[in-house]
C-alpha cells in the first residue's frame, strides 16, 4: 500500500498506508487529518478536501480535470498551481511516498 504523508500548517506530519483505489480525502479523514473535511463524501461538491501537492509529486498526481478545476475556485484557502481536491486523487502504487500539504484555514 502506498504511504502518504500530510504536512499540517504547524509542521506536524501524519502518515498512512492507503489501500490502492481509495481516495486521499477518505484516507485523510480516516487518519483524522485536521482541515481535510470531505463534507460531500468525495463527490466534488464542497471543496473542503483541498490540499497542496508537494511540487516534486505534482506531475505524478496529475492535473485536475475541468470539474475539479472549477471547484478549486471556492476553496477556503488560496488556490495555488499545485492545488488539488484530495478526493480526486486515488491511491496507486506510483504514489508511494507522496507528500501533501494541508492548508491552514
Amino acid at each position, binding site marked *: 500500500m502506498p504511504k502518504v504523508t500530510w504536512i499540517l500548517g504547524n509542521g506536524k506530519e501524519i502518515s498512512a498506508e492507503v489501500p490502492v483505489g481509495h481516495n486521499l480525502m477518505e484516507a485523510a479523514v480516516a*487518519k*483524522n487529518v485536521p482541515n481535510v473535511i470531505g463534507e460531500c463524501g468525495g463527490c466534488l461538491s464542497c471543496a473542503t478536501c483541498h490540499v497542496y501537492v508537494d511540487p516534486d509529486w505534482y506531475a505524478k498526481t496529475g492535473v485536475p480535470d475541468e470539474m*475539479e478545476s472549477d471547484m478549486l*475556485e471556492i476553496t477556503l484557502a488560496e488556490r495555488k498551481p499545485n492545488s488539488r481536491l484530495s478526493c480526486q486523487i486515488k491511491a496507486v502504487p506510483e504514489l508511494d511516498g507522496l507528500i501533501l500539504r494541508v492548508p491552514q484555514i
Partner: protein
Amino acid sequence: MPDPIVIVGAGQAGVALAAKLRALGYLDPLILIGEEPVPPYQRPPLSKKYVSGELEVDRLLIRSRSWYAEQGIELRLSTRVVALSPGEREVTLSDGSRLRYRQLALATGARPRCLPSEIGGALRGVATIRNLADADAIAPHLQAGRQLVVVGGGYIGLEAAAVAAGKGMQVTVIEAAERILQRVAAPETSSYFRDLHRRHAVTLHEAVGLERLAAVEDRVASVLLKDGTTLQADLVIVGIGVVPNDDLAREAGLRIENGIAVDAQCRSSDPEIFAVGDCAGFPWRGTATRLESVQNAIDQAEHAAGAMLGAAAAYDPVPWFWSDQYDVKLQIAGLNRGYDQVVVRPGKRPGSQSVWYYRQGALIAVDAMNDALAYAFGKKALEGGKSIPPAIAADAAADLKSAIG
C-alpha cells in the same frame, strides 16, 4: 462526574456536534446514541454508489471506528431513546435504563414517508432508502432484465432509477405532481432530468397518481395507476419524501413547527435541549425552515455546539445540495423558495447548464448540471450576499468571476 452532554442520533449531525464540542474544548462526558448497529455513516451514497455495489460499508463511515474512543466520545449503538423527561433532565433508553444529561441535543433525523398499507405499502418488494439496511435489502434485487417501479420523482427516486437503469433494469418512474422535481426545482431543471432519464431508457409517468400496488401472494407484482395503466414490478422503490423524527420532542411537550422548533441558536423551547439536522425547524428568512441535507446537518450541528457552550451567533446558512445521476453531477447552492424568475445559462461543455433563481431581482439559488463553475460562483455570490444579474447569468459569454467582484 458532571452529567454528560447527550446527543440522540448518530448521523452526520450527531457526529459533527460531538466533534465540534470536543474541538471547542468541552472536556466533560459526552454520549452519542445511535439506533443502528453500525458506527455513524454517510447516507447520500446509499442511493448511489453503495446500492450499486461500488463502495463497501467501511468506506461510508463518517469517522474511523477508533476515533470515538480517541475523542472521549462514548458511542452507544443499537440503542434507542424511548422517552424524554425535560423536567428531570433525563432520557430513557430502549434497555430500560435512564440517563441524566446536562444538556441534550436531538439529532434524530427523518424517516421516509411510506405508502399506506391499504394500497400495498407493506408488501414484500416495496422499499424505501434511508438506512444501510434498506440499501442492503434492495441491492440483490437490482438485476438486469427485472422491472423496477419508482414511486416519486424526487432526488432519491431519480438516483435509484439511475442506478437501476445502469444495472440493466427496466425502470419506470411515476410522479403524482405535474412534473418530476416539482417540489424542489424549476421546470427547466425538471426537463433537463426528464431528458436525461429518457436517454437512459427510463419511462416517466408524470401527473398521474398511484391507485394501488397489487401482489402475488405477499410480494408486489404490479403497480396500478389512476389513469388505468398497469405496470409490472419486481421491485418498487418509494421516494415520496421524509417525515422529521420529532416524536420524542413532541411527547415531551417541546414546541413543534416544521420539525422540532428551534431558535437561531438551535435551542428548542426547553433551554437545555437543542435540535439539529433533518429533524429541526429553524428560523431562516422569516420562515420555520427544515433542511434535509448533509450541509445543514454539519453546519447546524457545529453551530449548536457553540451555542451549547454559550455562543450567541445566529445560524444563517447558504444551503447547498448535490445529486448524482448517471454521468451528471447536480450541484445546488441556495434555496429557491419563492422564486419569481428563472434564467438558464448554457455551460461550456455538452450537457452542462445551470438554472438561476431570482426573487424580486435578487439571486437566491442555482442548480448546476455538470457545471461546477456556475455552482462555485453562484455559491460564492450567495455567501457574499451578492447577486449576479439575470442578464449576466443568462449570457454564456459573460464572466461570472468579474460579476461578483
